[in-house]
């Protein structure tokens, strides 16, 4: 089974981070949500591995306590 990379893997982290935040500059919350959704769909398709995606999804919300 493939595993999600959780060690640093971006060659130029500051460039990436700026591109990501620039992407949302001047967008309303609603537009940002739409852009994020499209981005997630594009990246998920690129990854193309359900197991890896599930690991990422689990980490993405692990800090939120499970509902009672």
């Amino acid at each position, binding site marked *: 089974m493939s595993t999600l990379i959780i060690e640093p893997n971006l060659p130029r982290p500051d460039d990436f981070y700026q591109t990501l935040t620039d992407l949302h500059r001047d967008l309303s919350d609603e537009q940002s*949500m*739409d852009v994020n*959704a*499209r981005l*997630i*769909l*594009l990246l998920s*398709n690129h990854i193309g591995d359900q197991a890896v995606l599930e690991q990422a999804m689990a980490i993405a919300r692990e800090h939120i306590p499970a509902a009672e």
Partner: protein
Amino acid sequence: MFKTYTFPEFDYVRSADQDTAQPVKHPVVIVGAGPMGMTAAVDLAQQGVPVVILDDNNTVSVGSRAVCYAKRFLDISDRLGVGQRIVDKGVTWNIGKVFLEEDHIYSFNMLPEEHHRRPGFINLQQYYLEEYYVDRINSLDTADLRWKNKLVNVEQQGDSVLLSIETPEGPYQLEAQYVIACDGANSKVRAMCGLESKGQIFQDRFLIADVIMDPKKFPPERWFWFNPPFHSGQSTLLHRQADNVWRIDFDLGWDADPEEEKKPENIIPRVKAFLGDDVEFDLEWASVYTFTCRRMDEFRQGNIFFAGDAAHQVSPFGARGANSGIEDTDNLCWKLKMVLDGKAPVTLLDSYSPERTFAADENILNSTRSTDFITPKNHVSRVFRDAVLNLSRNYTFARPLVNSGRLSVPPFLTESALNTADTEMFNCKVVPGAPCTDGSIVYNAEDDFLLSNLGNQFNGLLFVESHTDLTADILQGLTELAVQDVPVKTFVVASHEMELNLPEGSEMVIDKYGVVKERLDAQRGTFYLTRPDQLVTARMRRFDKEQIVAAQNKALGK
């Protein structure tokens, strides 16, 4: 009144069973003459099992219900002698198209392969389907269909069931060895057994309208719109039925008032906005529905079996209602026949509920996912849904995520205790627990189809490429299989025309285009064993009589 259809009125006929002091006992009583009660009745009666069918009404399904019948439904209806009438009257289609706003974004094909007897789908109003099944039942001496016979009570008594029935001439009682409850979504039998069907109701309402219009305007395809210009923010489905009647589904949202929406003065402007001012149409029928996905925990209680909507319900996106109901009765009837004839232990009946609840779960899962896509549950789901739709205009990757209904295909019963697991490698879609494939064959020097010849009994398929493949051992084995208490009739699938000296009980078919071999990943010598409902139950690379008998015993619950 309907313009295109006249509803038959069937006569109530007094039965001799109403005049006896003691309830008369029947091997099988079926409650409900909807599609599933009738498929069960035909299946049993044509195998010689006498059946009584009770229905509280005296006509066929009134108004807009099932439209789409899948290939598997047609294959089973062929076995039941009704398939050709459905296909002749129905509208054949294979292509579905999805639109977003004004644009066509995606198409799918329900039958990407050639050389099947039946298409991916047929559309036909449910009342025609029911009428054809009523005719078929009336042609069978062993089926006794009793209109205006309303079941009011059931009671399990040891090894049989006591049924209390009301008729226009007063009540009477019947005893049944087995009961099949096909009395629909609000099953009285289920309630009287103290059982429930559990699941979820979707918070949405749909206007379903059948309109008559000129067929030249739209092709026989399934067209689904997300957020169409004529019905902003919602979805719409258009589908052609027989007699130039078209089914239109409008998603109305949860806040719509069903009573208001049902009024013709409110429906007609919606349809006009959709079709345009230049298209003339007549309204045939309309109704407003909410949809539910739910099932019973078990489809059996003692000697009572539940099938069709009584056992499980799905939202219609995917057309999995009647299409899965017929698979229930297809699954149950041969087992009842074997047990009633004493050819299989009663424990064979234990396999019905696990096989069909497994299938129901797959149908409910698919139907729930479609409904959630069409009617997103919350804001973020809608954002993702709309992102998928918008991306799918220009980016093919998003198109498989678009879900306007995953149309009915038979769930493969891969977990069934009746299957014999593969011990050798096979590389094809068909697996133990799946219906056998169809394919063009030549049989008795005539063009034919494989599935038209399988079923009602155990069948073998033995693949050969030369007469020398049939050794004396194999011929001996085929003979023995054919004369067993529960015979296996083998079709020797020849790769080309050849002279074969086959024993009684085996017959040759020629694999006309080689598709049977290819679809079953067969090689010279491969053997497949199918059940009376055409499901593959075991397969092997070399004919081995002992293994075949063991697999058949397993499939008989021995």
